[in-house]
């Protein structure tokens, strides 16, 4: 992962500030940086979203393609994740440098979405055992400014909210062979219900307190972090500990409570923004990348 080199004095400054609930940029321990979310930025995808969280910049594109259902779940479609760490984020990602980080992120995303209540995959099925929609979710890391997992989960949720899958009808003729017909109207499409899609909250332990949304400098001072996947109702669906240091069980319980609290607020704010963008419809001014 991209990292900064900090002197001992800088680390002490950050740690002492956090003891007093005051971070370097003036935030409290449970405050996020300013998050910018914009959907529908890439026009030839089924859905896309761009999230800017401080200096972290993530672009997610969702493409819906037709495929065959997996053998163990013949009545369901599925999601495939792919993460590309762009060399623009840090030169270490040139060539195959970003593969380790990308695999870690992909595995985390698969774990979160493996829960069947997250996305209604049954609605992605067209013909059981024969045809289904496969959603290819592609994450592109444009800039690393700390707290990658949170930004990626917000972007994935926004992109899935924005995804428009064309409506298809299955026509069966006398011989029993099935034909798939695409609707003529390009705006006739099915949308996904993302109410149960969780967001990842990463809590980093610095000194004896924990912080939400760590910057690169704060990540360099933290010994261990806890990655929580929280739904909009405050349910925890997945938990993972990162880092070399050790956490004692009491801090883990405290961090879980903070995570649930912060997660619920994050979900309400995100849903508000997504609904506002949706209500503006075609009149929305697109900022894109030149704003």
């Amino acid at each position: 992962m991209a990292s900064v080199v900090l002197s001992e004095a800088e680390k002490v400054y950050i740690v002492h500030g956090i003891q007093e609930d005051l971070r370097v940029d003036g935030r409290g321990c449970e405050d996020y940086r300013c998050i910018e979310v914009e959907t529908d930025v890439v026009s030839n995808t089924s859905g896309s979203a761009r999230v800017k969280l401080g200096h972290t910049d993530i672009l997610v594109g969702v493409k819906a393609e037709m495929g065959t259902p997996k053998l163990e779940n013949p009545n369901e479609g599925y999601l495939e994740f792919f993460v590309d760490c762009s060399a623009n984020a840090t030169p270490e990602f040139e060539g195959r440098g970003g593969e380790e980080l990308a695999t870690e992120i992909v595995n985390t995303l698969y774990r979160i979405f493996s829960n069947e209540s997250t996305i209604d995959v049954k609605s992605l099925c067209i013909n059981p055992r024969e045809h289904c929609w496969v959603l290819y979710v592609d994450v592109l890391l444009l800039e690393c400014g700390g707290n990658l997992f949170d930004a990626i989960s917000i972007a994935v949720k926004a992109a899935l909210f924005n995804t428009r899958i064309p409506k298809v009808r299955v026509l069966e003729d006398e011989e029993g062979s099935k034909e798939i017909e695409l609707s003529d109207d390009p705006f006739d499409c099915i949308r996904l219900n993302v109410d149960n899609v969780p967001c990842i909250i990463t809590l980093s332990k610095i000194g004896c307190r924990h912080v939400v949304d760590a910057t690169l400098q704060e990540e360099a001072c933290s010994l261990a972090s806890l990655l929580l996947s929280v739904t909009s109702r405050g349910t925890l669906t997945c938990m993972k500990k990162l880092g070399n240091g050790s956490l004692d069980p009491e801090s883990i319980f405290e961090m879980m409570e903070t995570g649930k609290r912060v997660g619920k607020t994050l979900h309400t704010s995100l849903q508000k923004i997504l609904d506002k963008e949706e209500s503006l419809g075609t009149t929305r001014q697109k900022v894109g990348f030149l704003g």
Partner: protein
Amino acid sequence: MRGSRSKALHDRALVNCQYSMATFSTGERKRRPHGDRKSSEMTLHLKQTFEAAILTQLYPRSQIDIYVQILQADGGNYCACVNAATLATIDAGIPMRDYVCASSAGFIEDTPLADLNYVEEAAGGPQVALALLPKSDQIALLEMNSRLHEDHLEQVIEAASKACKDVYAVLDQVVRDHVHEVTTLLGE
């Protein structure tokens, strides 16, 4: 100098490029963002183009990295990369001989066309990609696909050059506006 120091050149800077396409950039999902043949070829073309333009003699034993990421592809990928990389190099303050402006051109129905889009490229006709140093009219890279009669070549290159000069006008204006804004903010 990152990676192997053995690649360092004793008298000039090494220009290191990477061309990468996002998997959702094309109509059909692309499985490998970079590392495949086409991306490697584009990388070499970018390297060749910028070695011609950057004053590498000023930075011996150093490396200049140019990373281009395509977010959405609709024809003229290489040309857009060159134009973007020119602006980025100017923004980085790296001295260059001149701007490098690029444009594609084609020849359909006896008409030269400048700046082909994806549909025109996919039609299979001849395509020329031209990277030009506008003030001195020097060609940094010229590439052609498919079949084109040599009588038409001059017209097509003419169309591409004109397009490059138009792009140069736009890029130059953008750079001048930006410098003006920055110096005004600095209060000079």
